[in-house]
C-alpha cells in the first residue's frame, strides 16, 4: 500500500526537498500547503496518511494547525519539521498531538525513519 503525504512548509525549497525525499522512497505526496490555514483545509479535503508540518508559517502556525487537524481527526499522524533551537515549540506541538519530529537541516535517512515510525504507530 502506498502511503499518502501532505507537505506543509512556507518555503518552496523545503517543500520540494521533503517531497523529493519522500517520493524517491515510494510515498505519494498528494498535496502541499504554504500556511497553517491551508494545511487544515487540505487535510480535510485530502485525508492523507501523514502530514509533515513546519512550525513557523504565516497566518496560522504549525502548532495551531496541529490542534485544528487533531480536532477534525484525532488519529491524524503529524510529523513536525523543526529548526534547531525550537525545543519548546516542538514539545508544545507534541502536546497538541504531533507524533514525532525531525530537525532541519534534514538528513534524508532521519526523515524516512521518522516517517516510518509515525506510520507504524
Amino acid at each position, binding site marked *: 500500500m502506498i502511503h499518502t503525504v501532505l507537505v506543509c512548509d512556507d518555503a518552496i525549497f523545503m517543500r520540494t526537498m521533503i517531497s523529493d525525499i519522500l517520493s524517491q522512497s515510494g510515498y505519494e505526496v498528494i498535496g502541499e500547503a504554504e500556511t497553517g490555514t491551508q494545511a487544515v483545509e487540505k487535510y480535510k479535503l485530502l485525508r492523507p496518511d501523514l502530514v509533515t508540518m513546519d512550525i513557523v508559517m504565516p497566518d496560522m502556525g504549525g502548532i495551531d494547525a496541529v490542534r485544528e487537524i487533531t480536532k477534525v481527526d484525532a488519529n491524524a499522524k503529524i510529523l513536525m519539521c523543526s529548526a*534547531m533551537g525550537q*525545543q519548546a515549540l516542538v514539545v508544545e506541538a*507534541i502536546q497538541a498531538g504531533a507524533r*514525532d519530529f525531525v530537525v532541519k537541516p534534514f538528513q534524508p535517512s532521519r526523515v524516512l525513519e521518522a516517517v516510518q515510525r509515525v506510520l*507504524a504507530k
Partner: protein
Amino acid sequence: MLDTSRYADLFLTESRDHLAAMSEALLALERSPRARGPVDAVFRAAHTLKGMSAAMGHDAIAALAHEIEPLLERVRRRELQATRALVDVLLAGADALEAAIAGVPSGGLMGTDDACRAAAHRIAAFEGVTIASSAPSLPTPAAGISAVALEGRLVRIRVSSDVPMRGVRAFLIVRRAESLGRVSALTPDLDALQRGEFGRGFSLRIVTDEPRDAIEHALLAVGDVEAVSVDGEGDAERALEPAAGAHAGVRRHVRVDTRRLDALMNLVGELVIARGRLERIAGAMESDDLTQGVGDAARLIADLQAEIIASRMLPVAEVFERFPRVVRDAARQLGKNAELTIEGGDIELDRSVLDVISEPVMHLLRNAVDHGLESPVERAAAGKPLTGRVTLTASREHASVAIRVRDDGRGVDRERVVAKARALGMLDAAAAPTDDEIADLIARPGFSTAPEVTAFSGRGVGIDVVASTVRRLGGAVEIISVRGEGTCVTLRLPPTLAIVRAVVARVAGETYALPAAHVVTALELDRRALSGAAAAERLATRDGPVPVIRLRTLLEMEPDDDTLKQVVLLRAGERRVALVIDEVVEQREIVVKPFDAALGTAPLFSGATILGDGAPALILDVAQLAAVGHRVSAGGPRPSTGAIAIESRQATDSRQVTTDSTVLRRPQ
C-alpha cells in the same frame, strides 16, 4: 576506614552548590507553593547533601538533611501545604546546614552541631497545614523522585549519541511510557529531561501490567533509543545515580584551586612587565631579528594573558543567586514586602572582583529594603503597589561593568542627610547642597542616616564603605535618588582587575599611572584657558569649564614652575577634572598590584604598578581626584593636606621597599 581528607575540598565546594540550589528552590516554592519543580529540587539537594556528609562522617549535617526529606515528601504527596511557615523552618534548616558546612574546614565551629540538631528537631516537629486526604494526587507525568517512590518497575533508557533535540526525544519517550501505565518516578525530573540535562540515558519507574518485552519494544519504537532495560528489581539508589557521562551536553568543567588561578595571573603579570623591558631593550639595540623575535613573543604573551583572564571570569549569577534570599529575609524581618528582580546574570567579572563586590552589593540590597522601601502602610498611602520592587542589574558599559541596585522606595531623605551632615560638621549651617553633593555626603566615611541601628544596615557601615571598596577596585559609585520615587546606586567596575591600560604621567621626576578608561584626552596646558583664583582654578574646554587640580600642589611637591606643562582631562562618571602634570610619558598596559593605604588618609591612590623599566609607580584614583576637584571648585574645604602628606611620604617609602621586589607592600 576511608581517608576522606582528599575529598574535603570537593565536599565543601559541592555542598555549597547544593545549598545554594536548595535556598533558591525554597524561595521558588514560597512564590509558587503548588509547583512541583521546587519541591523536587529541594529534595534532591537535601538527599545529595545527606549522602555526601554521611560519607564524610559529618553525622549532624547528615541527620539534619535527612529530616528535610520526609517533610518534603508530605508536601509532594499534597498532604502538607507549602506555607510560609514551612518554607521558614526549611530555610532555617538550610542556614544551620550552611553554618555547619562552613565550619567543616576548621574542624567544626562551636555549636554548629547543636544548631543542626535543633533545626532537625524543629523540622521533625513541624505540624504545618495538612490538606484533606481527598485532595487529588499528583498528575502524571510525575516529576517524582525515585528514592521515595519505589513502586513500579525500573526502566533505564539509553538514547543514541547523535540524537537531535535530546530533550524533546526524552519527552516523547516519557509520553510513550505513560501510554503503557503510570510513571511513578523519573530521574532526572521532567524539566531537566526536557532541557536535555542528562547523560546518555535516564531512568523511570512505571506501574503497568504490560510484559517486559512490550515495554522494551514500545520504548525502542520511539526512535533514537539505543537500549531499554527493564529490571523490575533494581534498587532506588541506582535509579537516582545519574547515568554515565551525565550532563554530557553541558560544558565540561574542571575544578581548579583559585590560588592556582591567582598564581597564574601573577606570573603572566610578571611576564607582561618583562615583555615591556625586552621591548625597550630591543628598541634600543636596533636589531631587526631581535625586534621581530620579541614581537612574536609579545603576541604570544598577549594571547596567554587573554586566556588566563578569560579563565578567571565568572558570571555574576554565581554570587547573585543568593541575593533573593537576602532581600526576602530583610523584608520579612522589617515587615515589608519586597520582590527582587535580577537581570544580566550572565555578565562576567573577574573572580577576584566578584568576590570583593559580593558584600557591598548585599549591603546595597539590604539598604534598599531597610531605608529605601516604605512599609506597606506608607506605600498604600503614597498610592504605590504594596510590594516594593528592588532590581539588581549587571550590564556592560563601554570598558566597564555596571552593577545597579534600584528600588522604588522613598528616595534619599534630603533633610535628614543635611541635618546629619551638619551635626557631623561635614556641612556649613548655611550651605544648600546640590543633589550631587548630597550623594557625595552619603558616600563619605562614617556617614549613616539610619535613625537607629537595625540588624541589617546602619551599624555605622553605610554607602561610604561600599564606595571605598569599589574605589579600591578602580571603580566608581554613582547615586541617583528621586524623593518618593526611589534610589539607584550604580557601581562601575573594571571587568578584570589585574591588567589595565594606563596613561603614565611624570610629575617632578616621579611617575604616576592614570587608568586609561578615565582619560578623555591629554593636551598642552594653555594658560590663557585658565581662570579663577589659585585655589579654584578652571580650565575652559569645548564642553565648558572644568575644575583644575595641580598634581604638584596636591602632593605637596615643588610648585609648578613656568616650563611647559601638560594637562590630562579625566572623567569619572559625570564628573570631569583637569589634572596638571609635567608630561605624559606613554600609554601602556600595567599590572595592578594592591596598594594598602593607611586608614584615615585621603585615598588618592587605588593601587601601584611596576613599569617596563622596573620602576614602581602609584596609580591615581580618578574618582577621588574628581571628587576633590569638585569640592575645591565649589569653594569647599580642601582635603586635609596633612593626610595627603602622610600618604605621599608613605608612597615614597613603598618605592624604596619595592626597588628590589616586584611586590608592593605597605611599610610596617
